[in-house]
């Protein structure tokens, strides 16, 4: 039986207007709409497909976050995942990526898995860090930015993205892979499945329940600390290049790029 665990993070909707809090140390979270990290949708979809193809197995969704993150887990359950686990603890209000990875790895000691699937990055902090760190803590191989995978016996073969092109690699299970666009097209949750998902098991665990000492994960243990947030400088108003014909416009643009912008 194949046990797949999907690591899932809830992030602000990519359309959101992001505001900075009064201390300039975090974003304002009150009026945001929250979604499942887009790369984690690919992870959930791939996990479900693996279970469907094998004809047996279980897909467990694991997330670290506040209470509201249960909504993203429910969405995964509605897509077809079997069980959800949320790790929520007051000490984890603002974890750094390594702390997140440490806690997820500790939680994974209590969940049987053959394969862990994570997103290549979370589009809020864009830290690209949690999956490699989880794999390192668990001592399992990590296959990054996968566009295709196939499991046979106790092995996984993946095509993964390189800076230039792709490579096909193979590793023994258990392993961790991260998703790249092109891996699959995530399904939408149907209304009946959304209803069914409400009855699927979703457990919330504290650090104590994982056998972890909260003091080791709080702010004193952080390795990275955001201490200021600002908006990027505004660009100047766009200069529209005019001309009677396409040729005139093109000539004016090229001249401007050369003389004013200095980029040619």
């Amino acid at each position, binding site marked *: 039986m194949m046990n797949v665990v999907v690591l899932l993070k809830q992030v*602000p909707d990519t359309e959101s207007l992001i505001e900075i809090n009064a201390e300039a140390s975090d974003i304002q979270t009150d009026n945001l709409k929250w979604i499942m990290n887009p790369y984690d949708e690919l992870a959930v979809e791939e996990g479900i497909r693996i279970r469907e193809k094998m004809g047996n197995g279980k897909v467990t969704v694991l997330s670290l976050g506040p209470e509201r993150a249960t909504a993203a887990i429910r969405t995964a359950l509605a897509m077809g995942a079997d069980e959800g686990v949320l790790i929520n603890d007051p000490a984890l209000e603002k974890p750094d990526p390594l702390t997140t990875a440490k806690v997820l790895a500790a939680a994974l000691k209590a969940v049987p898995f053959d394969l862990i699937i994570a997103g290549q990055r979370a589009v809020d902090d*864009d*830290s690209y860090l949690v999956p490699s760190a989880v794999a390192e803590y668990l001592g399992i191989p*990590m296959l990054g930015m996968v566009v295709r995978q196939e499991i046979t016996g106790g092995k996984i073969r993946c095509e993964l993205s390189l800076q230039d092109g792709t490579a096909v690699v193979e590793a023994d299970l258990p392993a961790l892979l991260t998703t790249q666009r092109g891996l699959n097209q995530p399904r939408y949750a149907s209304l009946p499945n959304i209803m069914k998902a409400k009855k699927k098991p979703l457990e919330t665990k504290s650090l104590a329940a994982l056998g972890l000492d909260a003091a080791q994960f709080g702010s004193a243990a952080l*390795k990275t600390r955001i201490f200021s*947030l600002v908006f990027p400088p505004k660009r100047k108003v766009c200069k529209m290049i005019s001309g009677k014909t396409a040729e005139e416009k093109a000539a004016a643009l090229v001249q401007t790029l050369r003389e004013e912008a200095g980029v040619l």
Partner: protein
Amino acid sequence: MSDGILVVTETADKKFRKSTYEVLSEGRRLADQLNTPLSAVVLGIDVLAAADELRHYGADRVLVCDALELADFDSDRFTLILYDIITARQPKIVLFGASIRDKQLSTRLATKLDTGLAMECAGLALEGDNLIATRLMYGSKLIAKVALEGTPQIAALRPNFFPATIAEKAGEIERIDVQLPPTRIRLIEKKPGSAKLDLTEADVVVSGGRGMGGPDFSVLESLAGVLGGVVGATRSAVDEGWRPHADQVGQTGKVVSPKLYVACGISGAIQHIAGMSSSGCIVAVNKDPDAPIFRYADYGIVGNLYEVVPEISREIQKRNETR
């Protein structure tokens, strides 16, 4: 006692990636401020000749591990070799370029060393002895300043963001013999990409969106050709099957910072902007004068891209020839 700054280099076909020179130059700047030596480490096969170049970019010392088994990147082997070098030499700061490969490598090392790492940095500064990293977050909507704890402090620098600067140094070469650790990942086959240049490293990116109307991107290829750049795409263009996924620019694609970004037939959705707003100069060509892309561009042309873009190529070609 930890001392010195260590730069991890990256090669492709026995030549350094552009980002190696950028990272080394930034390392030189920090090393001068801290009055500490700058070392670079090179892992690969037949890289000794290339290693010599690093002294032009400020390396006081170049550590070279040359072995057949290091010809292709292997996350397990590279991690363990670098771990040994770092624990033996105890640098204060370790710098990487934030390539696909080195995102993984830097993370594994930070995890093993239990120390702070900042990914995709857009700026570095020192506060006393401590590294402060500037990072873009939330789809480039915010700039964060991040303090790092632990030793060494590790940063992976966004490609194309830091200038590569010549600084002649001794660049003494030291060969390192390493025990090649076993690896758990077996390479079956490599499939090279079609692009001549990586999107994240290109000085010029010419991107097309749904306004291209079909898979024929030859007008953009021509413009990219005369500008020495590469072609990117929006998610819509990728979803249509017009371009490969690797070409997608945006919040769920590549984040690029070329000197010049030309957006053709692109509306300017926030998720696309997330991937290109840190470009030096942005030009937009769109037939709709109200397209949001003009809010983010420096220069705009309202018009049909199929009429305008070939004229731009021709104009640049003309100037290239008379130069």
